[in-house]
């Protein structure tokens, strides 16, 4: 079994008071709780913190944990010989203390073990227990959202064995992500969570879809946006350009007089919806200028400057004249 330092996880001393443990937990929970945190590894960090707190906040569990002694985090260790007799939990049999047992699972079920073992051995055997539900984050690319995909999941699910002992069982399976799942979509895999025990239903696995950033497209729901830089003359005179879409490149007509930051809509070229019309794709126009111009170009710009009576700052001049 691998040792975990629960005191270090909470950043408290081994002789910390219950109050100090609670304070440390609350502070870290606010920082790392996956429902409120924006930290990138919030979920894993919170799991560590919560696991530590669940054990240390309970006097009996904390005493049991302290008796394991101190080891280096991750060090493989075996509990002292009399530990099991004293803290007889669901892992009663000696064989249960293999390397596979997770310390967190052990302590999570220690309390349940106390309660049941008080009423005699084998209490767990009569009780149906539902498997746990799990949520996993599934980042996919915009192309995968467009065309649908499948993902391979490698998870370690805590499961009860025939003796009602909990141990992590590696589960590998493939799930189909249907077309049209976009940012924030939740999908459910029925019965793929933790396995139920003694007739209890299997838990579910929830997939939390997010879209990975894309070099060309930006997604808003099922609509996609991309940048369309135009040269000034293209915007003034109009043109036709080829733009990429997830379904393949298309020709887009840019009307004469197109303005910067205008959005040109390509209907139904965004992400498909599970039901109903696909989203749209918008080309967001920006005007770009050459950094350097040749002599001939400069002459033409000069001619344009002389010939044009376009006043781009007319509204500022008007504002200025009101002030006097």
């Amino acid at each position: 079994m691998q040792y975990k330092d629960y005191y270090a996880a909470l950043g408290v001393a081994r002789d910390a008071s219950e109050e100090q443990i609670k304070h440390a937990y609350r502070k870290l929970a606010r920082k790392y709780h996956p429902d409120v945190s924006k930290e990138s590894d919030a979920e894993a960090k919170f799991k560590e913190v919560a696991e530590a707190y669940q054990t240390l906040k309970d006097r009996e569990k904390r005493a049991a944990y302290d008796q394991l002694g101190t080891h280096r985090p991750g060090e493989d260790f075996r509990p002292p010989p009399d530990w099991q007799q004293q803290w007889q939990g669901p892992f009663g049999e000696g064989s249960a203390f293999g390397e596979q047992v997770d310390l967190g699972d052990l302590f999570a079920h220690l309390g349940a073990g106390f309660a049941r073992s008080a009423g005699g051995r084998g209490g767990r055997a009569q009780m149906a227990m539902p498997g746990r539900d799990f949520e996993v984050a599934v980042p996919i690319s915009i192309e995968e959202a467009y065309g649908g995909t499948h993902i391979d999941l490698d998870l370690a699910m805590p499961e009860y064995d025939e003796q009602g002992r909990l141990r992590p069982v590696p589960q590998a399976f493939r799930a189909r992500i249907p077309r049209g799942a976009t940012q924030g979509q939740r999908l459910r895999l029925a019965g793929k969570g933790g396995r139920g025990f003694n007739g209890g239903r299997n838990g579910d696995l929830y997939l939390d879809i997010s879209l990975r950033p894309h070099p060309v497209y930006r997604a808003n729901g099922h609509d996609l946006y991309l940048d369309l830089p135009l040269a000034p003359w293209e915007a003034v005179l109009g043109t036709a350009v080829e733009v990429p879409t997830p379904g393949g490149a298309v020709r887009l007509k840019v009307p004469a007089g197109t303005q910067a930051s205008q959005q040109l809509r390509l209907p139904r070229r965004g992400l498909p919806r599970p039901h109903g019309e696909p989203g749209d794709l918008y080309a967001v126009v920006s005007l770009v200028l050459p950094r350097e111009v040749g002599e001939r170009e400069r002459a033409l710009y000069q001619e344009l400057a002389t010939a044009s009576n376009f006043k781009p700052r007319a509204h500022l001049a008007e504002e200025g004249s009101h002030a006097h």
Partner: protein
Amino acid sequence: MRIELNEVIWLEAETLSFDELLERSGLPAQLLKELVQAGGIPPLDPSAAQPQYGARALMVARRARRLQQDFELDAAALLLVLDLLDRVAELEGRLNELQVKLPRRAS
């Protein structure tokens, strides 16, 4: 090794009764009742005799269970946190909507 391909269920494709919502969320019954009565977890059709709940209700209820368990919150505090998280999500949605419309490359 042959890997079994599993089909997913769109959460939107399902509607749940109160009891199913209770089971799937893992919330204590009394707390779920309070959250529903206070409007924190709205049914699909509030006027229905046997209200049904949709995907959103399930996600809110599961979030409520996590928050209640991890922060030891009561119903009033939970409702406040759920409301605020909802507003954060709405504002982030609007921010994203504005950001996608801005050209990314300043030329």
